[in-house]
C-alpha cells in the first residue's frame, strides 16, 4: 500500500513538473522580450517615423498599419461571422447542410496561414486589382479570423435560454423580431468577446499580410485603403532578416516585439476576462 502511494506521489510530481516547464517557457519569453524591449521603449519610439534606413527612430507607421489592418479585418469578419452563427443556432436544422457548413468552418480554421496569404495574393491583390494594400491585407486577415468569430458568436447565442425565445414567439413576435430584440441583445457581450479575441489574432498574424499588405519601409503614413503599410508583426520579421545594420536593428526589433506582445496579450486578456465573467454569472 505504501509503495503505491509513493508511486502516485512520484507520478503526480511529474505531472506537476510539466506545468512548471510550460509556465517557465512563457515566463522566459515574457522576461527576455520585456527586459530588453523596455530599454528602447519611449514616447518617441511610439510616435516617430523610422529614421536612417530603419536603424533608429520610431515605429509609428507600423502601429498605425496594424491598427488599420485589424479594424478592417474585424469590420469584414464580424458581420459575416455573426450572421453565420445566427443561421447555425437559430435557423438551421441538424442535417447534411449544417454538417457541411461545420466541416467548412473547422477546415478553414486549420488552413495554414501562409496559404491564406497566397489566396489573398491571387484574389484580392491580383484578381480584384486591389494591389498590395490595406484593403487586401484586411480582407485576407478577415477570412483568417472568421472561424474564431463564428465559434464565439455561436457559443454566445447558444447560452441564451430557449424559454426567452419561446416567450417572445408566444407573444406573437416573428422569428426575426425575436432574434433582433431578444436573442441578440442577450448575446451581445459574448459576441463582443469573440470579436476581441479575433482582433488579438488579427493583430499578431504575419504570413497572411506578407504578400498582401506589408512592406518594410514607407516614407509617409498611408492615406487610403489602397496604400501598402508597415505592420508590427512584419516589422519584427523584416528587421531581423532585411536591412544592412543588424546590430542597430536588433534593439528596435526587441522594442517592436514588446509593443506587439503587450498589445496582443492585453487584448486577449480583456477578452478572456470578459468571457470568464460572462460564463460565471449569467443574468438568468
Amino acid at each position, binding site marked *: 500500500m505504501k509503495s*503505491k*502511494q509513493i*508511486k*502516485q506521489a512520484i*507520478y*503526480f510530481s511529474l*505531472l*506537476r513538473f*510539466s*506545468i512548471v516547464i*510550460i*509556465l517557465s517557457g*512563457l515566463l522566459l519569453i515574457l522576461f*527576455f*522580450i520585456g527586459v530588453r524591449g523596455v530599454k528602447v521603449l519611449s514616447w518617441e519610439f511610439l510616435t516617430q517615423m523610422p529614421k536612417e534606413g530603419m536603424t533608429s527612430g520610431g515605429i509609428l507607421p507600423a502601429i498605425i498599419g496594424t491598427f488599420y489592418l485589424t479594424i478592417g479585418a474585424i469590420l469584414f469578419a464580424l*458581420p459575416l461571422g455573426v450572421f*453565420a452563427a445566427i443561421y447555425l443556432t*437559430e*435557423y438551421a436544422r441538424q442535417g447534411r447542410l449544417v454538417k457541411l*457548413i461545420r*466541416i*467548412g468552418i473547422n477546415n*478553414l480554421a*486549420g*488552413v*495554414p*496561414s*501562409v*496559404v*491564406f*496569404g*497566397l*489566396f489573398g495574393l*491571387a*484574389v484580392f491583390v491580383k484578381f480584384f486589382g486591389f494591389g498590395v494594400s490595406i484593403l487586401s491585407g484586411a480582407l485576407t486577415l478577415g*477570412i483568417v479570423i472568421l472561424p474564431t468569430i*463564428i465559434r464565439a458568436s455561436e457559443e454566445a447565442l447558444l447560452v441564451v435560454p430557449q424559454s426567452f425565445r419561446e416567450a417572445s414567439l408566444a407573444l406573437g413576435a*416573428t422569428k*426575426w423580431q425575436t432574434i433582433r430584440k431578444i436573442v441578440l441583445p442577450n448575446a451581445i457581450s459574448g459576441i463582443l468577446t469573440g470579436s476581441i479575441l479575433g482582433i*488579438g489574432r488579427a*493583430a*499578431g*498574424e*504575419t*504570413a497572411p499580410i*506578407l*504578400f498582401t499588405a506589408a512592406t518594410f519601409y514607407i516614407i509617409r503614413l498611408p492615406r487610403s485603403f489602397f496604400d501598402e503599410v508597415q505592420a508590427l*508583426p512584419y516589422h*519584427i*520579421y523584416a528587421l*531581423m*532578416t532585411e536591412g544592412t545594420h543588424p546590430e542597430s536593428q536588433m534593439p528596435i526589433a*526587441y522594442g517592436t*516585439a514588446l509593443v*506587439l*506582445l503587450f498589445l*496582443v*496579450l492585453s487584448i*486577449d*486578456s480583456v477578452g478572456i476576462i470578459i468571457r470568464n465573467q460572462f460564463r460565471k454569472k449569467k443574468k438568468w
Partner: protein
Amino acid sequence: MHQRCKELLIKHIFLFFALASIFFLLGIVIVLFKEGLPIFKIVRVKDFILGKSWYPTYDPPDFGILALILGSLWVTFGALMIAIPLGVSAATYISEVAHPRVKEIAKPVVELLAGIPSVVYGFFGMVILAPWLQDVFNLPTGLTCLTASIILGFMALPTVVSISEDAISAVPFSYKEASYALGATKWETISKVTVPSAISGITTAIILGIGRAIGETMTVLMVAGGAAVVPRSFLRPVRPMTATIAAEMGEAPVGSDHYHALFGIAIVLFIITLGFNLLADHLAATFRRKMGQ
C-alpha cells in the same frame, strides 16, 4: 403574407453568410489549383514530390520538393516529441489532480501561450534559443531543425492541452467511481481508466496539434535555418514547405514557373493539413458519441 416573405428572405440571407466559410474554403482550393497546376506541365507530379533538389531559380531549374516535405515532417515530428508528453501531462494534471486555484492559474497561462503571435515566437527563437543551442551543441549555426521543433512544440501546446483537457474532463464520473470502488488509487484510476477512456479525444488534440505545427509559417521561416536539403540530423538547418513559400513568393515573378511551383507546394501542404483536419473532425465525433453527448 408580406411578413412571411420577409422572414423567408431573412433566413436565406443568413444562410448565405453561413455558407461563406465553404465559399472561402472552395475559393482557396480553386486558387491553389488554378495557380499551382501549371507547374505539372513542366515537371511530373512524381518528380515534383519525390525530386530531391529544389533550385527554382537555376537555369535549368529543379523543382523537387522532397527536401521541403521532409523538412516539414521532421520539424513537426520534433515538435510533437515536446508537445505530446508535456501537453497530455499538463492536461491530465489540470483536469484530475490540480487544486482548483492552480487550475485557475494554469488555464489562462495556456491561453496566453496561444495568444503570443508566431512572429514573436520566431523572434525569441532567433535571438535567445538559437544562440544558446549553438553554444551547447557547438554548432556552426543555431538555426536548426531542433530549434524550430522546440519553438513549434510550445506553439502546439495550447491546442494539445486545451483539447486533451476537455476530453479528459468529459470522462463520466461513474467510470472513476467504479475504479475507486475496486480499490484502485487515484493514480491507478487516472492511468488505467480516465486517460485511456479519453484517448480518442486526446488523439484529436494531437492531430490538431500536428496540423498547427505543419502549417506554421513565421516561426520556421525565422528559426529553421532554411537549407533546402534532405534533412539528416536535428542539429542541421532544414527548410519546411511553409517557409519556402513565404521566403520565395516575394521574389517569384507572377506567372513564372517558380510562382506556379510555390502554389504547387501550397497544394501539397493544403492536402496534408486538410487530411489531418478531417481526421480530427471524425475522431472528435467518434469521441462525442462514445461519451454519450
